[in-house]
């Protein structure tokens, strides 16, 4: 089991922002974390990244990467894991890149932060760009010069270049057009199949989750209320809330 979350609780003072009793993401698996806004999905991702503290939250529980405990790790040790073995992509690709830097600069700086030489970083970045079907020249552009879809693909390329084993995706397609969305989803599938990445896919869009994810966990008000194989959860939802969510998904066939 690549990523193992047990009894995770993210607290702001007394308020529980997220509570996950058990959640696993295996190698070559896409697990969906579904729920409406404010259900605690993003806090979970922040907690796995070890960044919940910067928002002022306290985190209890266990997060294990390949059996190594992440909670309680020293900040320096966490920084070695974060960005190298665990990568993240975010909802609004246009605002995910610092606007006054060329995207390539951020990519190569990140690679060099994790030990690569300048030449190695350049090569890996170029190779990764090609894997996401983007010409490496785009790395010399500023974020304002790239489309949302392109930026999201650069973000995924970054995860590939880092040889990340886990990808945390926080609503990565919500801000994209449907056709572009399909391309990004296809990319994620490829990451799962050819590189064996463990992907945690957070979204409020059940239709996308149904299409993409192998397993799904439903979150509501900070709690995981149901989880299982996607097909099973959709066919036979245990919770009323899950039923409501499913019913709200618009269908093309009626």
């Amino acid at each position, binding site marked *: 089991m690549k990523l193992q979350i047990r009894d995770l609780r993210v607290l*702001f003072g007394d308020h529980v922002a997220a509570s996950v009793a058990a959640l696993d993401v295996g190698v070559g698996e896409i697990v969906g974390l579904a729920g409406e806004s404010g259900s605690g999905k993003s806090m979970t991702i922040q907690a796995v990244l070890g960044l919940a503290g910067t928002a*002022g939250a306290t985190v209890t529980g266990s997060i294990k990467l390949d059996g190594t405990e992440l909670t309680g790790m020293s900040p320096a040790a966490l920084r070695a894991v974060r960005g190298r073995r665990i990568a993240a992509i975010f909802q609004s690709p246009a605002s995910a890149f610092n606007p006054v830097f060329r995207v390539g600069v951020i990519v190569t700086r990140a690679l060099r932060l994790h030990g690569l030489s300048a030449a190695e970083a350049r090569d890996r970045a170029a190779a990764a760009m090609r894997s996401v079907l983007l010409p490496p020249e785009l790395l010399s552009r500023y974020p304002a010069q790239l489309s949302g879809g392109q930026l999201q693909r650069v973000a995924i390329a970054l995860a590939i270049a880092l040889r990340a084993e886990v990808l945390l995706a926080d609503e990565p397609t919500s*801000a994209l057009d449907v056709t572009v969305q399909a391309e990004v989803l296809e990319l994620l599938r490829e990451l799962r199949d050819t590189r064996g990445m463990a992907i945690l896919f957070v979204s409020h869009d059940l239709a996308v989750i149904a299409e993409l994810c192998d397993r799904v966990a439903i979150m509501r008000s900070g709690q995981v209320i149901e989880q299982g194989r996607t097909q099973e959860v959709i066919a036979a939802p245990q919770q009323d809330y899950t039923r409501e969510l499913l019913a709200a998904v618009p269908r093309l066939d009626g």
Partner: protein
Amino acid sequence: MSTLLARAPGVTAVRRAARANRLITAGALIVAVIVVVAVFAPLLAPYPADAGTATHPEIALQAPSMRHLFGTDQVGRDVFSRVLYGARISPVVAFFVLLIACAIGVPLGIAAGYFGGVTDEIIMRVTDVFLAFPALLLSLAFVAVLSPSLTSVTIAIAIAWWPWYTRLIRGQAASVAGRPYVEACRTLGIPHWRILLRHVLPNSMTPLIVQVSLDAGGVILTISALSFLGLGAQDPVPEWGLMVAEGENYFTTQWWLVTYPGLAILITALAFTLLGDGLRDTLDPRRLPVR
């Protein structure tokens, strides 16, 4: 919502509001004290006549004591009384300066933002020209060629200050003018002046209020600077900047002539800046340019 900190349930917002409240409280408290001092100066000052034409050369340049808390100046006047009466000068002048500046600047800004086009271009170029001069310099030039007095100072600073408000209001008015409900009003045939009065003006007030209270400090500094240069208040008016200028020659030995009036300027300017900061943090989360 794309940012995490915004999702942290109101933590940042609450922290900011608490901090802003402290600023507003501190600033408002000091401003209230200044207002009280100004209003009740005749009662609070031990020697009210010293703020006028009274002079007592026989007790000139005495160090601070129980009888004269801040000492006496070069003609024997009680510095404490004069500093208290000074609260009636600079802050009041600042009030009128800002009033006039708004009276000129706000309508021009609304016209520029709302009507756009040529009106906008002309008004903004004129604004640019006035803004090409730092306020102290422009008001200095105007007062120097007119006759130095507090009235000249009031008018001169107002002339230098109105463009800031035009620029500020123009942006607000332009964004309000572009909103769908304003378009709807126009298609319904509602006359311009009503739209301006009922929609554009109220929506532009918030940043104006913040800016005015932030500016009050700067205006007070400008007033006292002009008086320090001899261009504003003239003796025997107890204006703080003038008092610093009068005390300058005696400063090395009689430090109290300069220290207390200057302190009064600092505290007053500080109060309005704090108040403005606090108002900005509560009323308008999008930060206004810090001047």
